[in-house]
């Protein structure tokens, strides 16, 4: 059903398998349906076990080095957990995944970086509580990450 | 000039019996609302007497999403039925909700809320200008 809709968009054929750099459209909801279900394991903001499990499921390894990718304009204290701005950039990457341990499941999004893509992206995410945001980039077949603790409190007075 | 003073005074008393405000000025909530001493029914009587005046003045208290009139209504039933627990029914964002309280505790709260609401009106008469930059508030 989803696939049919997807084709109707006229995006061309879906590439099966895990080609590292996709020239054609790739929907990870279909490619890797199980990774979206990986749970965070505890309430602790520094427990990254669920995140690491998801990283392994997406990239095939959880060997990740710090660096080469940067999280920026991502708050220390969120104005509101429903709208947390997250920005990240790296010089080049084939794939990037954004994860956190502030919600029941760990994975937020996966980007395939197209040929013309410049991996300097921003999104706004939901965080149900204080937690760590992790961004992982696949660069020349290796994984690099950046992480940041974002504090979330019940936001806003009155009404 | 006189008229101005009269209007100012009349405003705050217009819709409420000045008596209630004068009465509460002499009341010590720790006496009249102390359930240990006066018992829950007496405390409720005090709440029932003054809360309607607070409503008229637009100063009724509300806590945990529950208006004092809702505390009082639930207390009336609980005290009549001699129940140790009072179940308060109230509305929050259009939804019917309930919350349980110890009856004695709640009677004291409802009483204090009713009296304090009116006492604060009296106090504000004397204090409000002290908070106004340029009037009584030095900065």
């Amino acid at each position, binding site marked *: 059903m989803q696939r049919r809709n997807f084709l109707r968009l006229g995006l061309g054929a879906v590439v099966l398998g895990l080609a590292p750099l996709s020239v054609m459209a790739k929907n990870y909801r279909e490619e890797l349906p199980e990774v979206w279900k990986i749970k965070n394991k505890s309430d602790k903001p520094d427990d990254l076990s669920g995140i690491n499990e998801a990283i392994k499921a997406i990239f095939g390894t959880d060997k990740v080095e710090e660096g080469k990718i940067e999280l920026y*304009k991502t*708050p*220390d*204290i*969120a*104005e*509101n957990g*429903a*709208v947390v*701005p997250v*920005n990240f950039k790296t010089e080049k990457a084939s794939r990037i995944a954004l994860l956190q341990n502030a919600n029941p499941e760990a994975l937020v999004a996966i980007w395939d970086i197209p040929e013309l893509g410049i991996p300097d992206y*921003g999104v*706004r995410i939901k965080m149900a509580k204080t937690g760590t945001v992790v961004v992982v980039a696949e660069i020349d077949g290796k994984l690099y990450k950046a992480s940041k603790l974002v*504090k979330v*409190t019940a*936001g*806003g*007075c*009155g*009404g | *000039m006189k008229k*101005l*003073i009269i*209007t*100012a005074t009349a*405003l705050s008393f217009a819709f409420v019996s000045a008596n209630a405000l004068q009465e509460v000025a002499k009341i010590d909530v720790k006496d009249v609302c102390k359930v240990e001493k006066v018992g829950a029914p007496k405390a409720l009587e005090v709440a029932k007497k003054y809360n309607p005046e607070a*409503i008229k003045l*637009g*100063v*009724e*208290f*509300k*806590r945990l999403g529950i*208006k*004092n009139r809702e505390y009082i209504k639930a207390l009336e039933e609980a005290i009549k039925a001699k129940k140790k627990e009072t179940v308060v029914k109230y509305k929050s964002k259009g939804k019917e909700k309930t919350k349980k309280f110890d009856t004695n505790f709640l009677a004291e709260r409802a009483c204090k*809320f009713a009296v*304090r*609401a009116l006492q*604060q*009106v009296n*106090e*504000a008469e*004397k*204090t*409000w*200008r002290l*908070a*106004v*930059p*340029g*009037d009584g*508030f030095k*900065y």
Partner: protein
Amino acid sequence: MKKKIIASMIIGSFALLSAGSFNAEAEKDRKALTEYFVKKFADRKNASQYFPYTPKEELDKNFKWGLKPEEFRLGSYAFNKGGRAQYEEIIEMPPYEDAIDEGKELYEKTKFKNGKSFKDCFPKPEIAGDYPKYVKGKGVETLTTAINSCLKENGEKPWKMTKGKMAKLEAYFAAASREAGKKVNIVIDSKEAADAYARGKKEYYSQRGYLKLSCASCHVQGAGQRVRNEYMSPLLGQTTHFPVYRLKWEGLGTLERRLKGCNKDQGENPHKPGSKWMNELAYFMAYMSNGLPVDGPDVRK
């Protein structure tokens, strides 16, 4: 004490009579309030006098000092750097833009059953800075109650005063006012209007609710202090940017919606939107921002 109050009222009314202008007290209040806030946020050096409970590190790192009066339209984002950065991120693509378009539709396309339209009540949309207004025989009208008066006078049902269509139409009025460079322009030109202002002022500074807080406790003396994770915004500039898209609401709301929330937080059964109490409170509040640019709609926590 009482003597002092009476004395100051007498002085106040003398000034009123001799100047022949009914806004003398309001003007004096506005100037003092502005001066107070400018002083309070002037620099780090005097900060501990105004913010005795705020950790030093926070004053060093998270506060912007040297604020000009116009900057207070940003509320707590005027001084709170961390919040300001997120605010700026969000208004890169503000979540209220659709509401402005929908509000414009409501203004231009709504036809009343009697054939008239909003344009008959409000010939121009750039009117957000002119409200609340004292209307002879009616009392204070906020933009919200004025819109409902328009509906009722034309045989239509009034709208909900806190959100939805009301907030959208106001978003359009505010955006049009901002685009036209309009400023807050609250008029007090009669004895009745001055009395309404005085009542609003008194309510603003009166402690109420089980928490015994006045509006001023948080938004004059308390402005800039933090309660849990909430920086309290200054009264100056507070009404300039409504309606507001609040992250907490995930939607747009009117000034009335916000005031109701504030009143509830004081521990009081909140006064109703459209009530005389709320209209007069808003009249006082808006006067304090007289001369500041209209800056709605905007985004807040």
